[in-house]
């Protein structure tokens, strides 16, 4: 039996061979992976990061329904929904770039830290090539920054703060949803037409980023129309009983109350305002009015009959095509498709995430790659139509979509739980477009990661 002997030269040779062998896959991988999570098999994974717990869980559930519908349509299932009306014909119903679309989901809990953790998990463990979803601007800004660092695309869900595509914008992030500035610009002319230009407004504002930008936007727009702001009071985000904030409004000299609140805050503050008789009151010789800058169906459902007659704005509404005509083609196709599958019409949150999924897939098809820089180029200054909002521009300077904005009003006699808002007017995109530089921030350059 011969013994095993290793001399110095042999050790070096063996080490070199073993080292090269171990390093080889990494070398090949590095060469092959031009960007983070480049799909190499027959499928591509998208990460749907939505609130599945916490106060916006119902909104998150509606987003998930729309995502599942989008995936079904992208893979050639169902009736195709808005793929049939989309102005781009790049999508063929065979997945994205021939790869079957699969998805993973995460729970944002509507908390930035939790949302980042779930997005990170989907990117690192599940290999998600794109992250999308959310129902809060705080979450959107946090996840967008994470995606920029990780080198994946972020297609924002429901986020309304100016900051998402303003001071916190990122090259890897894109927003289809409208923002506070647009709400203010769309609402002001309608408010002036309905309530006159000699009005005194009292703002109650949720004490966080979205509240500030919304108050600023509505103040600027209404003051430009001649309104005066008599007071603006910050309310704690955790506030549930707004009686002590609402009660003094009637004797403050104001004749309009603007509720810069969203979700539960809005439901509770509006309920308090109606209870305290503001809807029936008179001030300065005029009927007292209430305005809610941002409406959602879930909020309207929560507030019930209290929303009747109150103006606000939305990104989209399921009745848009029937009310405002063919310009908004795609709406009916989406509503029919969603309604047939789930038994009720989609919310604006569902619509925006469905659009974002299709827009991402279409950009990848047109770019011929999933590389974030390719997606970035494909979406930059991209003009499209047929996704339910009329002609739309994805502006290159800030990755913000520009499209018509809906001014809505709570219905006096709703026919169902889904029929709570009626469209009052549609403000053209030109009227809500602004210079990309006004909110500051640097877009930076796309990061493909890897």
């Amino acid at each position, binding site marked *: 039996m011969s013994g095993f002997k290793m001399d110095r030269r042999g050790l070096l040779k063996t080490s070199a061979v073993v080292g090269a062998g171990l390093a080889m896959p990494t070398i090949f991988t590095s060469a092959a992976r031009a960007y983070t999570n480049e799909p190499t098999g027959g499928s591509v994974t998208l990460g749907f990061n939505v609130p599945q717990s916490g106060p916006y*869980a119902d909104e998150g559930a509606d987003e998930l329904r729309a995502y599942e519908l989008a995936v079904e349509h992208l893979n050639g299932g169902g009736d195709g929904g808005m793929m049939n009306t989309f102005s781009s014909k790049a999508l063929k119903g065979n997945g994205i770039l021939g790869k079957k679309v699969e998805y993973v989901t995460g729970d944002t809990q509507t908390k930035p830290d939790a949302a980042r953790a779930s997005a990170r998990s989907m990117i690192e463990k599940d290999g998600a090539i794109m992250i999308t979803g959310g129902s809060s601007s705080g979450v959107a800004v946090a996840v967008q920054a994470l995606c920029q660092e990780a080198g994946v695309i972020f297609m924002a869900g429901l986020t309304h703060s100016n900051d998402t595509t303003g001071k916190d914008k990122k090259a890897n992030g894109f927003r289809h949803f409208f923002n506070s500035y647009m709400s203010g610009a769309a609402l002001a002319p309608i408010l002036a037409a309905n309530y006159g230009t000699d009005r005194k407004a009292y703002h109650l504002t949720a004490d966080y980023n979205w509240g500030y930008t919304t108050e600023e936007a509505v103040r600027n727009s209404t003051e430009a129309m001649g309104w005066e702001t008599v007071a603006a009071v910050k309310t704690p985000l*955790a506030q549930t009983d707004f009686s*002590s904030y609402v009660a003094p409004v009637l*004797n403050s000299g104001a004749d309009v109350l603007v509720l810069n609140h969203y979700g539960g805050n809005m439901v509770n503050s509006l309920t308090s305002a109606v209870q*305290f008789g503001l809807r029936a009151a008179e001030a300065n010789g005029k009927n007292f009015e209430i305005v809610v800058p941002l409406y959602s169906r879930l909020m309207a459902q929560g*507030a019930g009959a209290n929303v009747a007659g109150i103006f606000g704005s939305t990104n989209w509404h399921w009745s848009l095509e029937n009310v405002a005509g063919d310009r908004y083609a795609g709406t009916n196709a989406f509503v029919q498709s969603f309604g047939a599958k789930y*038994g*009720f019409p989609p919310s604006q949150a569902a619509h925006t995430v469905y659009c974002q999924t299709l827009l991402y897939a279409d950009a990848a098809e047109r770019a011929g790659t999933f590389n974030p820089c390719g997606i970035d180029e494909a979406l930059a200054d991209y003009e499209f139509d047929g996704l339910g909002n009329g002609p739309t521009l994805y502006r290159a300077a800030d990755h913000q979509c520009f499209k018509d904005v809906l001014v809505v009003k709570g219905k006096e006699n709703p*026919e169902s739980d889904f029929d709570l808002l009626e469209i009052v007017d549609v403000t053209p995109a030109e009227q809500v477009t602004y210079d990309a530089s006004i909110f500051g921030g640097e877009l930076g350059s796309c990061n493909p990661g890897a």
Partner: protein
Amino acid sequence: MDQIVLQILNGLDKGSAYALIALGLTLIFGTLGVVNFAHGALFMLGAFCTVTVNRILNLGFVPEGATTQSVGGFNFGSPKETPYLEHWFGEAAGQAIVDWSVPLSILFAIPVMLLIGVIMERGLIKHFYKRPHADQILVTFGLAIVLQEIIKYYYGANQIPAPAPEAFVGSFDFGAMIGMDAGAIIYPYWRIVYFVFALIVISAMFAFLRYTTFGMVVRAGMADRETVTILGINVDRRFTIMFGIAAAVAGLAGVMYTPINSPNYHMGMDFLVISFVVVVVGGMGSLPGAVLAGFLLGILESFASMREVIEFLPGVNQVVIYLAAIVILLTRPRGLMGRAGVMED
């Protein structure tokens, strides 16, 4: 002056909810020595008793030949149902019953909440009597989360409106009633109803404990459990019933609160922390202290929410209750009406 009166009214109203929850918390702590972090969840369950009653009253059937209802021109969803109540009693009577669903829910909530309280105590909490307070807090807090998630599973995360009866919707000129300028103080009917209701429940609780044999035994047990047991009285059984009664009080507070704020699964947590502050400020184990502190802190919170106060001290509205608690505990370590020997071992 009108603003001061208005904020006092608001404070009394907020304090009503705080006092009712804190009263139950104090009863449980005083009788069983348990720090019950699930008490906010009982308030929430009470509110969902209203939602449940409302849904039961709106149960219906699909008339023969009914077709899928059209929603804005789209045909999906199920056919429209005719509520049984309208079918049995006619449209006007059926709608009137539904309109009064919040007060009617009291009849449903009392037995349901008593039962929930007894099951909670016998099924879980009794196993933690001899464990440290930290264990009790953990298990009851965990129970609160479980109850929340169960409600969210069945009712969703969104708020569900439960309006007051039509007769109590809207507001009235309280200022004119007390001789002030017309329109100076406009106050909602239902908030007055809530305040009066809270006073009735609190008075009934005190009367029950003061004037009934059962209440006397409970008070004796709170003061000296061992001696009462030696006398051959089954204190445990009475304390279990007290837990059920405390749960029913929290539940009733939740039932009547639904028209003020549309209920959701999380509403109990919103009140829980403040209610504990109320209990501590009032004095651990002191029932009058809990009620007094509830109203006082409610009024304080309302004044701190005034625009003039916030402009002078930004952010004070968010911390005023805790600041007050610190000041009171520094000057009166046992709280406003705390007794020596309670939580001091």
